[in-house]
């Protein structure tokens, strides 16, 4: 087996806040001891609700923010140990597509300037023909090079965001909720585009989303996160969930089929504050299977019968 493109080992990130006048400092673990491999050509999905740490994880993997502990190896190189110049060079092979195509494109730039920027940052020259080809690759007419972002629809803007991410022919792309601010009708277009680009350019994706249905449709393997920790890794998109939280996520989706209406057993309560986590399993307070053990000890992510799950009482 060849070495994975990305190897994440024991990655953690703590955020500290407060500590001002009359305010006690507080801290939270946004990402807690995450270890993952991403194989070449794979689409790895990370799914979870707000505050689960999925976006922080995405930024840690690209070292857009620094980890509190742990390492990220990219194609054999330890990114976490690189000096700034070497990191910039390594970043030619990595890219990110952001959630909101309205705020991730500079409104004063033309599309030609947006697309030329990655080359400028890396000190490379670029021709108009190349920029036009980049637009064509994401299904936009080259005549748009002179347009400004406000003249585009949301879907077209996200295509520009993807074209910019692919400017330097990266091997690895982090997709942070790339369709969350688009209409569902446009979402499928973008997923189709990403899927075609992966085949054509041999890309590896880390796909971040809150939508388990979409992740199950698009991804080869799925990582489920809850409050900073990985609770389950589904080896196949259609694998049966073993963690009660994954089950609840699946059950919360509404199928567009009125004959399959069902009473959802809603999860009790809401996600606890990451600043004051209870001891034990972070999900215990909402879990129908929780026992005293769950409220006392934190379950480790261990290889279950078929795939890794962090639960004392898996399904």
């Amino acid at each position: 087996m060849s070495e994975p493109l990305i190897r994440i080992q024991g990655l953690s990130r703590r955020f500290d806040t407060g500590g001002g006048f009359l305010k006690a400092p507080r801290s939270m673990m946004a990402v807690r001891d995450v270890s993952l491999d991403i194989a070449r050509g794979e689409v790895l999905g990370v799914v979870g609700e707000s505050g689960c740490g999925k976006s922080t994880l995405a930024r840690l993997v690209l070292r857009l923010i620094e980890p509190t502990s742990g390492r990220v190896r990219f194609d054999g190189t330890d990114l976490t140990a690189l000096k700034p110049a070497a990191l910039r060079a390594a970043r030619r092979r990595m890219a990110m597509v952001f959630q909101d195509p309205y705020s991730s494109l500079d409104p004063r730039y033309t599309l030609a300037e947006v697309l030329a920027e990655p080359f400028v940052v890396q000190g490379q020259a670029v021709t108009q023909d190349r920029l036009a080809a980049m637009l064509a690759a994401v299904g936009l007419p080259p005549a748009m090079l002179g347009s400004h972002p406000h003249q585009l629809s949301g879907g077209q803007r996200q295509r520009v965001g993807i074209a910019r991410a692919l400017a330097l022919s990266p091997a690895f792309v982090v997709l942070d909720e790339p369709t969350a601010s688009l209409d569902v009708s446009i979402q499928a277009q973008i997923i189709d585009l990403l899927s075609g680009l992966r085949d054509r350019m041999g890309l590896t994706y880390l796909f971040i989303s809150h939508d388990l249905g979409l992740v199950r449709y698009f991804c080869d393997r799925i990582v489920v996160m809850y409050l900073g920790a990985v609770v389950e890794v589904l080896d196949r998109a259609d694998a049966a969930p073993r963690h009660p939280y994954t089950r609840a996520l699946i059950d919360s989706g509404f199928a567009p089929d009125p004959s399959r209406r069902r009473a959802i057993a809603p999860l009790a309560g809401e996600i606890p504050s990451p600043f004051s986590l209870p001891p034990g399993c972070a999900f215990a307070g909402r879990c129908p299977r929780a026992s005293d053990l769950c409220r006392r000890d934190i379950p480790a992510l261990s290889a279950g019968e078929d795939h890794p799950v962090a639960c004392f009482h898996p399904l």
Partner: protein
Amino acid sequence: MTALLQVTDLSVAIGALRLLDGVSLSVERGQILGLVGESGSGKSLTATAAMGLLPLIGGRVTGGAVYFDGRDLARMSEAERRGLRGRRIGFVTQNPMTALDPVQRVGEQIDVVSRLHLGLSKAAARARTVDLMTQLRIPEAAAVAEAWPHQLSGGMKQRIVIAMALAGEPDLIIADEPTTALDVTVQAQIIQILGGLVRERGMGLLLITHDMGVVAQVCDRVAVLYAGRLAEDGAVGPIFAAPAHPYTAALIGCIPQDGMAPGSLRGIPGVVPSARAFPSGCRFHPRCARATPDCAAQVPPLAPRGAAGAGRAACLHMLPEAG
């Protein structure tokens, strides 16, 4: 029996832009109508018109009418319309943060609705507030009522907004994407609670959403809007079993489902047209796989789809009845 909310052949313009064109829909007591379509299809504008709030956004009715409980909104005085809102029509917005006053405790914001509209005393209003919050499954409701909005999670804030909408004992609730801003597990709870309360109390609910999954799960009937016109309407069961309008079928096909083969998730090519440049004929024809030259030449009339009473669709080439 008159419908609770009856929108008849409604056309609305803002300035020179004709945004709604002949939209008709109705909501009965105890019934949930889903109003769906992509962004820019006119869903929220329809809701604004149904509350008589068009002047606030510079809009005007250019044709048709909105009847609430048999009475034409346009023939009421502004004072009468104001009396309806909050008292007989409750409203739930998409973003709870914009609906709540950040510098007032959440319980007081609910209290004020029943004090104003039902004339309750301070103590009676609070008792009612706590009771409503409990029905919305807010734990320790009396304590949460003393909280400020910023201390609550998004799901909790949206429950407060729903409690405000319910506090005047309205006959009709209009909810504009009430769960879009929430996490999926919370969305499922809120939709179920809202649907349950509406049926229990015999209210009507106009539920605006872009999510066909939500419609399938809770609505009785559905109206599909496209570019300011009604594309299809009818009972949820027959429409999901066999959509007649290609746009309805496309919206249903956009939702990823279990067991879908890679590449089988279909989008809709192109984008919703701008009101500055609506296409001729059927406004969906440039994006439609079934379009023929006829579709660009003539506006398709709303015609019965399939069996009598199974709803209507505006399409020259309706999809054949499946199965």
